[in-house]
């Protein structure tokens, strides 16, 4: 996979998740960061740091991105959310606009 097709998401604890750019674009917030012409460092290096989002939640978010792509292409599977994660995930989803 070419580097420019991927994007690195970094959690509060410093864990790095490398995912497809296409998947990350499910988030309106990330899409804006990566596509806005303002010369954000995010746009150039393809790295986004989320000091507010824990590793567990960011992992779940990444899973959701891929699930969402599948869902959009018509594959209807269930995306399970553990009740313990609902609040944190909800806030992250709100921030990421996804």
């Amino acid at each position, binding site marked *: 996979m070419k580097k420019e097709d991927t994007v690195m998401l970094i959690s509060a604890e410093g864990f790095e998740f490398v995912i497809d750019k296409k998947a990350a674009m499910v988030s*309106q917030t990330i899409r804006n960061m990566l596509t806005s012409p303002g010369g954000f460092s995010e746009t150039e290096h393809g790295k986004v740091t989320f000091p507010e989002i824990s590793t567990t939640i960011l992992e779940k*978010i990444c899973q*959701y991105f891929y699930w*969402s792509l599948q*869902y959009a292409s018509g594959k*209807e599977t*269930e*995306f399970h*959310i*553990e*009740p*313990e994660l*609902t*609040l*944190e*995930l*909800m*806030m992250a*989803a*709100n921030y990421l*606009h*996804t």
Partner: protein
Amino acid sequence: MEPLLERMCIDAATESADAVDKWRRQRRTLQRMPSHLAEALLRRLLQRRLLYPSLLEVFKYTVEDVDLSGESFVDAEWMAYLGAFHYLNSLILADCHKINNAALWYITGMPTLKEMDLSRCSKITDAGIQHLLSLPALEKLRISETGVTADGVIILASLSHLLLLDLGGLPVTDSALNSLQTLTKLQGLDLWGSEVSNESVTTLKMFRNLSFLNLAWTKVTMLPYLPSLTCLNMSRCTISSLFEGEGQKPRLEKVNFSGATIHNTSEAFKYVETSRLSLLDISNSALQSYSFLSSMNAMTNLDLSDSGLVDDGSVEHIARIGATLKKLNLSDTKVSVEGINALAGNVPNLETLLLSGTPIDDTAIHFLSMMPALKVINLSRTHVKGLMQLGGAHDEVPSFSALESLSHLETLDLELLHIKDLALRPLANMSRLSHLTLRSVSLTNESLYHISSAKKLVHLGLRDTVVTDTGLEAFAPPPALEILDLRGCWLLSKEFVSRFCQMHPQLEVRHDLFETLYKRKEHSTPSRATTRTPKGKNKQGSSSAPPQYFVVDQRLKYSREELLSLRISLSLSLVPFLNGPTK
């Protein structure tokens, strides 16, 4: 609408009482939750019947607006927890019948509370008002139809920040209204059904910013000049003069005079600036002349229904202001085909036309087709037959064909007409028709056949028709259909209706032998899609490209037998809730 993952999270968090227990101790997370998320979560918990007083505590740092209207179990215990909220801005308790004076004690002195709605909490009396006086920031107060008396209203005078005060249905006397003079910031005042009369209306002049005033069902017959007034409701009043005296005219926008008695219309409207008037309801009021309408050039919504004196002559005045009209209600008037002819061509923006109960016949339909923006037409209880004879020929042609040219037509009400099946043939060519209601004993299976080609139909009413089992069996519902109303179709047998429902599980079928099941289920199962959605219509089922994960109606998952057994088990498990939350 909130993004998908957010909704899925709220869904998962409110899945069950167990799910709630998994997150309710995450205090730090709960404390830094944005208020709109916390409020969405709170609303959903309430809808799913998972909210109980002590659970409110987790929201005390985040939630600003709480709406518990209509929840009969809300009592003093709930108020005790709400009183501890740090940023409570608005508290809606309308129709919470357990709320009494003592329950209000818990919210005394709350510095942030700006809006309070206690409408129809009948246990609230003057003593409860005392508790409200300690709310320093209160701007909106609704206490209509409570047990408050004139004495309780008098003491409201100290709430000097009030912008809106709803005293509807309370025995407000002239002296009580006089004592409210101190509320000079008032923008909205509701006094319907009170005892105020002309004696105290001059007090209203003290409210320089008053823009909304409701005096319906009072003895008031005249109003002083109120400079800021835009909305006025004086339905069921006897109106003699408005705003007389200072030579200036308030710019009214919305007026409701329904059921009012106006002896001299030109006199009554003399001091009213009508150029901005956009909504006028003068239904059920006997006026001698409607010539005053001619100057109301901004009118969008006009209701003249239920008035025997509205005839084709009055329609000429309407036609003059037709350019801006969007909604016109002429139900139960004497307007005939001549009147519709006068309107045609003069109402380019008219979207809704209600002609129920007027003496029009099929010839009027041709004129309707000359109103290009029409979306909603009601022709029920008229002389329309749906078929016309052309020239001397014996062939009858469907008159509704003329409506095919109306490209925006969505709703067509044809109840209680003497129409035949053949009349419905043109429906297939109405490309946007989504709501159709029919109710005639002369309609048979053939109607079903014609209707099945109306592709966009969402709601179909076929009440009191002689549709039979075979007809229903052969009926292929249009793909978008959601509701099929078959009440009063007495020839249908229970077996066939239930088989039809099983074949088309996406449909909500209403029938006398069947309806009870739906009603009861909605009350007893706390399923996602069928529980109450308090604000607006439940549109989850019809939203375009529905995210299946979220909107799956629990009905679809089970057969009818399973649902019935579920209902019994659920109603048992809900018993503790009905008897009052335990925690």
